[in-house]
């Protein structure tokens, strides 16, 4: 780190701990809910529990410890952190079906109230794939093509706000396309496919744009490396998203196939 990034200092450990706290709490709550609801309901899938734990490990690793420090001063490490925190962690957390677990762990009355809240018009609107994509990918464009990226490392408040946004937007983006939890007002596969395609393209374009035009105070060499990590690393997670979307389509059309083939025989 001989470039002009040396003056960027990591934030105090206490602040890091405060950012990590919500993740630790949700990790514990989930596990408690699994153990509690398993007592009188069908056994909760281990796959989901593991997915939840891995998702939290990804998120926490980027927020605290030596890797978080490195991500603060090295742009390539920052990009790995972005992939883990903004893409992989939200995907793993969405796959863990937290809402399903919540609804089955609480009394029916409360569950009904929660499902009413989830059907709320505002929540349906932000879960629209176009809106979710603008929040997620649009937010990234804003971060990396304006001085915001530099300001984030200077201001504690911005740092926290942006990280909260990146994670929530990543989660919103995932659940806008992949329906794991019960989803009121589902949208067609073809619509979701087209929007996802454009959103993923915008992510790739941004990666190459960063390669060509490094963000403020990032050296070209680091920007080039970071851009390649964003481009190819993003692919890996995006391939997972696309696979899940088509897999859900494949499963959902099976029913109609069977229905059609029965009278024919």
């Amino acid at each position: 780190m001989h470039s002009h990034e040396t003056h960027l200092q990591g934030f105090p450990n206490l602040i890091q701990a405060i950012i990590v706290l919500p993740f630790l709490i949700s990790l514990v709550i989930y596990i408690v809910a699994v153990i509690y609801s398993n007592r009188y309901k069908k056994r909760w899938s281990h796959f989901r529990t593991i997915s939840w734990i891995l998702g939290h490990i990804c998120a926490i690793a980027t927020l605290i410890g030596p890797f978080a420090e490195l991500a603060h001063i090295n742009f390539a490490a920052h990009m790995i952190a972005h992939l883990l925190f903004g893409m992989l962690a939200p995907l793993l957390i969405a796959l863990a079906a937290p809402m399903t677990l919540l609804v089955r762990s609480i009394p029916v009355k409360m569950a009904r109230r929660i499902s009413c809240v989830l059907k709320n018009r505002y929540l349906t609107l932000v879960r629209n794939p176009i809106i979710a994509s603008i929040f997620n990918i649009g937010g990234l464009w804003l971060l990396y093509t304006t001085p915001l990226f530099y300001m984030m490392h200077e201001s504690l408040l911005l740092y926290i706000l942006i990280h909260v946004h990146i994670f929530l937007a990543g989660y919103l983006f995932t659940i806008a396309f992949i329906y794991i939890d019960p989803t009121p007002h589902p949208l067609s596969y073809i619509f979701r496919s087209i929007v996802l395609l454009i959103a993923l393209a915008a992510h790739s374009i941004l990666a190459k744009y960063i390669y060509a035009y490094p963000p403020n105070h990032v050296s070209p060499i680091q920007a080039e490396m970071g851009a390649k990590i964003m481009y190819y690393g993003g692919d890996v997670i995006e391939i997972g998203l696309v696979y899940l979307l088509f897999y859900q389509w494949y499963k959902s059309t099976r029913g109609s196939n069977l229905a059609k083939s029965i009278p024919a025989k």
Partner: protein
Amino acid sequence: MTLSNTYTEKSHKHEKRFQYGQRNMWTGLMFGLGVVAFIDEVVFHQLLQWHHFYDKSTAKIGLISDGLFHAFSFFATIGSAFLLADLHRKHGFWLKRWLGGVFLGAGAFQLYDGIIQHKFMKLHQIRYNVDIIPYDIAWNVIASLLIIIGIVLLVKTNQLKR
């Protein structure tokens, strides 16, 4: 199981292919497009390292085109694999027509890459520090051949349609 039984079972597997003629073509097209873009990435970018990740003379429109096709390539590969599985499930797979789509899709992408992306948008060249003309000719001739094979297969299977 007797021989005749296996025979009827085999023809039964593709009995509905004429109903799904168009779908076979589109599934093939997507697969061809996706796979050729994948080969381009693996062979020319990674193994040979002839292509560059970013060329200093790239036009902005080139970045957009590259991003769209890059996303579309893995999208189409995965999607067409599921569509293919669905065709099999429906007993509607038609190899010849599907292959027609694959060749046409592969050729179309390569021609687009060779003419529009490499030449007009200057995304990157096939190879650097060499006489580029023979490379360009070979690239685009192969693309045209793939397109011709694809069209021939599609026209042939189109006549078979009832």
